[in-house]
């Protein structure tokens, strides 16, 4: 089978270019075989031996559709140009090949899992491309920007190099902002035995701090018993899940869950981030061999749905004008929250206009995957 011809603008990525120059073939072969033998099993084998090369998955992929049906973006093509070759050559491939694998797996697929839903056999191509990412990560062939956020996770246990004092300082500042809306509002830090631990993604304290003030006011109005940790473990996002550095991914997820256990809360409520939900609810626990998170995780959509539906918060004024919504793959197709999202949209918008295809058939926004970030 000849490699697919892919016409792409050349991209300079210092990290990947340097890695390409120094990777040795023996190293590549060893890593590929190690990952395939030790970390994969029946699924990969069955997927590769079942795929009938029918191409039906192409119609699922927003990369393929939005690039004028360019064959090189079809899901099955991405498998052909990566994992099939690795398996066929038993890992004997060169550094240039690994670089192209990284381009495909990180920047031409978002692991959105739409193709799995369009393959007649339910072959999970996104899973296979995550295996490719895993191999690339172990070979240091990761786009610079993504790797930087992974380093941040590893060094600070949050995604955006937020330092411990900055974290506490931001929370206290935002508590005051919240009191601007509701004077009696509090942002309780380290309250052991609270009902809820609220966790956020790194970008919230970094450059969307007002969201912390907003939740302070919302929690007060809803009358909920909640807390936030003053220590690391507050960040629920996980770029290491996307890079394939599962060791760091596991550290992040473990600390997040352990922090909730230390605070003895009943549940973790998290902000809107889809990939963070996926990491905390699925990829993290799965990698660590847990069948489900030790403390239940409630995504923002479920949380606000309950608050609005039960009347704990009331919408004073709906947003004007036609407003639409993009269904985030990781909480809708892969989380089943499509109907609740619509309930919220109708509750807060005067004129909600739905998209097609919607709910679990949505198109990925192309941000998923970690190479672009909020």
């Amino acid at each position: 089978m000849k490699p697919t011809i892919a016409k792409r603008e050349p991209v300079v990525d210092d990290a990947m270019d340097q890695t390409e120059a120094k990777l040795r073939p023996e190293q590549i072969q060893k890593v590929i075989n190690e990952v395939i033998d030790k970390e994969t099993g029946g699924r990969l084998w069955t997927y590769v031996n079942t795929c009938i090369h029918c191409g039906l998955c192409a119609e699922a992929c927003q990369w393929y559709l939005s690039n004028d049906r360019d064959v090189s973006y079809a899901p099955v093509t991405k498998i052909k140009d990566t994992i099939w070759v690795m398996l066929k050559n038993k890992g004997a491939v060169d550094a240039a090949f690994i670089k192209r694998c990284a381009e495909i797996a990180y920047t031409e697929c978002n692991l959105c899992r739409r193709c799995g839903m369009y393959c007649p056999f339910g072959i999970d191509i996104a899973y296979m491309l995550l295996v490719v990412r895993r191999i690339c990560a172990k070979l240091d062939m990761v786009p610079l920007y993504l790797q930087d956020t992974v380093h941040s996770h590893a060094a600070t246990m949050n995604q955006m190099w937020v330092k411990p004092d900055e974290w506490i300082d931001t929370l206290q500042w935002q508590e005051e902002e919240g009191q601007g809306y509701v004077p009696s509002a509090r942002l309780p830090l380290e309250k052991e035995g609270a009902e809820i631990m609220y966790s956020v993604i790194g970008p919230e304290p970094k450059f969307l701090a007002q969201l912390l003030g907003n939740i302070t006011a919302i929690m007060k109005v809803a009358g909920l018993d909640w807390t936030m940790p003053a220590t690391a473990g507050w960040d629920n996002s996980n770029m290491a899940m996307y890079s394939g550095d599962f060791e760091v991914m596991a550290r992040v997820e473990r600390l997040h869950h352990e922090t909730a256990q230390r605070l003895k809360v009943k549940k973790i409520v998290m902000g809107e981030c889809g990939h963070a939900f996926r990491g905390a609810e699925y990829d993290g626990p799965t990698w660590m061999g847990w069948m489900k998170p030790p403390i239940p995780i409630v995504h923002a959509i479920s949380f606000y749905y309950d608050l609005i539906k039960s009347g704990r918060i009331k919408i004073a004024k709906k947003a004007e004008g036609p407003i639409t919504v993009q269904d985030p793959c990781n909480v809708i197709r892969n989380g089943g929250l499509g109907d609740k999202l619509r309930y919220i949209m109708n509750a807060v918008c005067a004129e909600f206009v739905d998209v097609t295809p919607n709910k679990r058939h949505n198109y990925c926004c192309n941000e998923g995957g970690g190479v672009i970030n909020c």
Partner: protein
Amino acid sequence: MYELVRGPLAWAAFIIFIAGSLYRIIYMLAGCKKEKIVFPHMSLKHSLASLVHWVIPFNNQYMKQRPAFTIVTFAFHICLVVTPIFLLAHIILWDESWNISWWSMSDTIADYMTIIVIAGCIFFLYRRLTDPVVKNVTDASDYLLLAITALPFITGFIAYHQWFDYKTMLIIHILAGEIMLIAIPFTRLSHMLFFVFTRAYFGSEQGHVKHSKDW
């Protein structure tokens, strides 16, 4: 020659088909066991839901989006499986050897169904040659699989209509059928065996673990 293909070779083909299929399924299940999460993620309810939505035509969104393909592929696969099992000539062979028999379809219907299988093969061949995505992921093995699938039906059709030397055609037909049986477990024709499992797993993953659906 006829005795050979009808007797020992047929035996061998069935034994290899059954033992090979079992071996491949057990090998797959052992591989899944190694993965620790596969079995705990499975749920009977969601496995069945997924199968119901993908085994019944037009019961999921994607099939509705591609009506022509759906009709062709269902007609093809149904005829492919049903025709050899309920063909009178085949049942007579079972009856002669094992003294067992079951309902058979009329030869005319079988004839039409054979034509559907052959037409389906031509359709798939045409797609392989023309659809850019399919063409790009096609190699010699895909054509070989198509040939292995088509040959028993083409030869059976010719033998039934007695176009060439009947006896020779019949021997080629039996051989072609035996090759197909042997090929099922050991080539990607094994999607016939694995289909149920891959669907069940994806259905469980989507439904049981992710609280969504896969259709």
